[in-house]
């Protein structure tokens, strides 16, 4: 029986049931009223006759409507003779039937087509049951589709909530609401996509990233523009809540200026060779959210912009392990250097060079990727710029070179528990004071893919401050999330 026929028959069945129900209701109502008013038998009989007449009129009207529907419906398909009614879980055994059933099932699977060809315009109870079953099965899909359809063009939205409790030997304790980051992303048009990270912290609200990225340029090129994390090094491109440790390594805070936030444009290219090799070139106001060497909000000559180049490659050691290797060079031809008293900056018209080399080794046993793994990451940085080494009020700029590095190792011991250790060392950029060193063992506990706890101990050894610190971080993701290639 064709779908149209079934629907038609189903409609008439529904009508019949409706009228029976109506009749019952009318009779009940009549009897109820009769009882209430204590009518005489004649009055009751008369009223029942009236109701019967009304029901007959209604039935006649419905019959005419059914005939009209039948006339308007397309002609029925010829009978196919097939009687297979297998659904997703149905099966039959038997050598002869097997191949035939398989062939029948393979023709699109739907069970409703397999009942085609019945002559009877009225559904039998079994047919009605099948129709009801099919409708029942597809209804959730239809309902789900209807619910999501009106919002199809809205960007994907995700919210990251990041908080921590900290205790510092020399500084006391604090509940630190680190951030609530709202992430939005969607295609702009066939040629670009866009995303934004809007960040609310204890210090206020800011646009942390908002960028447009091309998606259809030829020659394996991608162009990104707006505010985003520049492609410098590795962990400086991570948002705070995505870091493998609670706090960004001191060396990145000191050398890069925290997150590698930059206003500018980047071009990235994937070399058309067997070996993975990507090359990024960028121009920015500056790199580093806390970098105040250049005021990015005023027009200036090109010498006061920062320019970046970064090649990155990958070597597969085995099926389960590989090494990412990258080098970054950021140059600012002329910078404003901070004065020794920290009161302001002075234009000394000299260049700043920031160089980084990052190596990441990953071991991910393919069959146990959710339960076992090892990541070892190291980043070495070198900074060269003129620093004010004079007395307050008598600036004396001298070129100073400084080095720093961090190394961390993280073990995926189980699906939930990932212990790790971070070593962090950096020289003072002016080389006036001693080095800063930190040792941080930590344990990350993944309650699920979307919720994470982290306990970290840090021993900080820096000029004028030698202390133990303890952090307890709680991070959660709501809504949409993506597994980005850069954040892997």
């Amino acid at each position, binding site marked *: 029986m064709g779908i149209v026929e079934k629907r038609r028959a189903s409609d008439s069945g529904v009508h019949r049931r409706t009228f029976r129900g109506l009749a019952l209701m009318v009779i009940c109502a009549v009897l109820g009223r009769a009882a209430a008013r204590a009518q005489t038998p004649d009055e009751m009989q008369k009223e029942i006759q009236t109701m019967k007449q009304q029901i007959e009129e209604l039935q006649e009207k419905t019959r005419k409507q059914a005939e009209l529907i039948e006339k308007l419906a397309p002609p029925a398909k010829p009978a196919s003779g097939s009687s297979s009614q297998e659904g997703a879980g149905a099966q039959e055994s038997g050598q002869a039937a*097997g191949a035939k*059933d398989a062939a029948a099932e393979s023709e699109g699977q739907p069970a409703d087509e397999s009942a085609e060809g019945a002559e009877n315009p009225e559904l039998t109870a079994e047919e009605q049951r099948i129709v009801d079953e099919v409708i029942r099965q597809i209804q959730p899909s239809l309902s789900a589709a209807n619910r999501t359809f009106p919002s199809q063009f809205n960007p994907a939205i995700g919210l990251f909530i990041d908080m921590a409790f900290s205790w510092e030997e020399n500084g006391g304790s604090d509940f630190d609401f680190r951030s609530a980051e709202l992430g939005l992303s969607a295609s702009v048009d066939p040629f670009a996509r866009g995303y934004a990270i809007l960040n609310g912290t204890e210090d206020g609200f800011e646009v942390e990233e908002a960028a447009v990225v091309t998606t259809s340029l030829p020659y394996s090129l991608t162009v990104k523009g707006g505010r985003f994390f520049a492609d410098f090094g590795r962990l400086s491109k991570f948002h705070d809540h995505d870091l493998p440790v609670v706090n960004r390594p001191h060396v990145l805070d000191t050398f890069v200026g925290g997150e590698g936030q930059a206003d500018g444009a980047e071009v990235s*290219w994937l070399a058309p060779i067997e070996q993975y090799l990507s090359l990024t070139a960028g121009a920015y106001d500056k790199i580093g959210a806390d970098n105040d060497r250049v005021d990015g909000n005023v027009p200036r000559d090109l010498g006061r912009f920062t320019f970046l180049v970064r090649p990155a490659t990958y070597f597969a050691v085995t099926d389960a392990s590989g090494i990412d290797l990258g080098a970054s060079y950021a140059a600012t031809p002329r910078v404003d250097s901070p004065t020794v008293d920290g009161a302001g900056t002075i234009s000394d018209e000299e260049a700043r060079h920031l160089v980084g080399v990052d190596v990441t080794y990953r071991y991910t046993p393919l069959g146990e990727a959710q339960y076992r793994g090892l990541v070892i990451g190291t980043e070495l940085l070198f900074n060269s710029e003129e620093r004010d080494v004079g007395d307050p009020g008598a600036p004396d700029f001298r070129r100073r070179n400084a080095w720093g590095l961090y190394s961390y190792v993280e073990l995926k011991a189980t699906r939930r528990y990932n212990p790790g250790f971070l070593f962090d060392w950096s020289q003072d950029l002016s080389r006036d004071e001693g080095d800063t060193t930190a040792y941080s063992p930590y344990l990350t506990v993944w309650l699920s893919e979307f919720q994470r706890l982290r306990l970290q101990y840090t021993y900080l050894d820096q000029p004028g401050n030698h202390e133990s610190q303890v952090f307890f971080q709680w991070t959660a993701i709501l809504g949409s999330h993506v597994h980005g290639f850069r954040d892997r």
Partner: protein
Amino acid sequence: MTRNLLGRSFLLAMLALGSRVQGEEKIHVVATIPDLAEFAQRIGGDLVDVKGLATGVEDIHSVPMKPNFAVLLNRADLVVLLGLEVEHAFLPGLLEASRNPKIQRGMPAYIDCSKHVRVLEVPTRIDRALGEQHPMGNPHYNLDPLAMKEAARALAEGFGENYPQHKSVFQSNLKTLLADLDKNIARWKREAAALKGKKLVSYHPDLVYLAARFGMQIVGTIEIRAGVDATPSHVEQLIELMQREKVDVVVRELHYPAGLAETVAQRTGAALVGLPVMVGGVPGAPARGGVPEIIRSEGGATTEAKAGGPPTCSYVGLIDYDLHALVKAVGEPRKS
């Protein structure tokens, strides 16, 4: 002088690259899992060069995002995927890194094989409280041979849409593949008759389609929710449920750890069986003659036609392995 030498070397390298690219005539296909790599190879025949990303032993939800996969995708003419968002942990990121506009989502070269599949377990409520949901429904249909026939059709359609000049070849190869599958489906139905009505618990909802196809009933999962590891209270509740329902088999998909599955099986008396869920999931899984062998290659798995070779991995071999293991398990007497 040095600059000239460098310049010439670069020019020669570029020319060599250009000639290499021009010399290649095959259609470059990247498939996310070996099951689809095999189908792509069989439908594309000599016209295609197929590379796979997963090797088959992985949990498809956590295939590593290796940079050399981005290189494969950068050169791909077509990408073939299971769909229903099952590859979301690695494919979107890799597609972005590939910088290949023609295989991005929504393009004709992005061949989603779930197009014609009747999807099971489509959620009526989307909520992370219910686990790592797949909003479009359970995506593990590759263990259902009938659903994979639909995948093969979608694959051949996709190939034909992109290369209409070869459409007849693709359709002819599809016909052969479907006939081969039909023959095996008939055999599987006979061989798996003992599974009808049997109850199972799996680690993750990987076996929903296989169970439905061969008449098994899934009672629960060891994971508390899809993608969320078990808690002690959930395990206790599951054991109680399994004892009440007299569950016959505990299935540990091979990429999940053995310990908890063993505990659950021991405490309930159910048989424990470890099953691969993708082609290549068990190296050396026996295959029928005439089916391509999956071999490893740099950058992932690829297929090579080696009819009648030694015991190997193939889609038919995968289903053979899983069904035979299940039949053997349900035939074992309960331990309590």
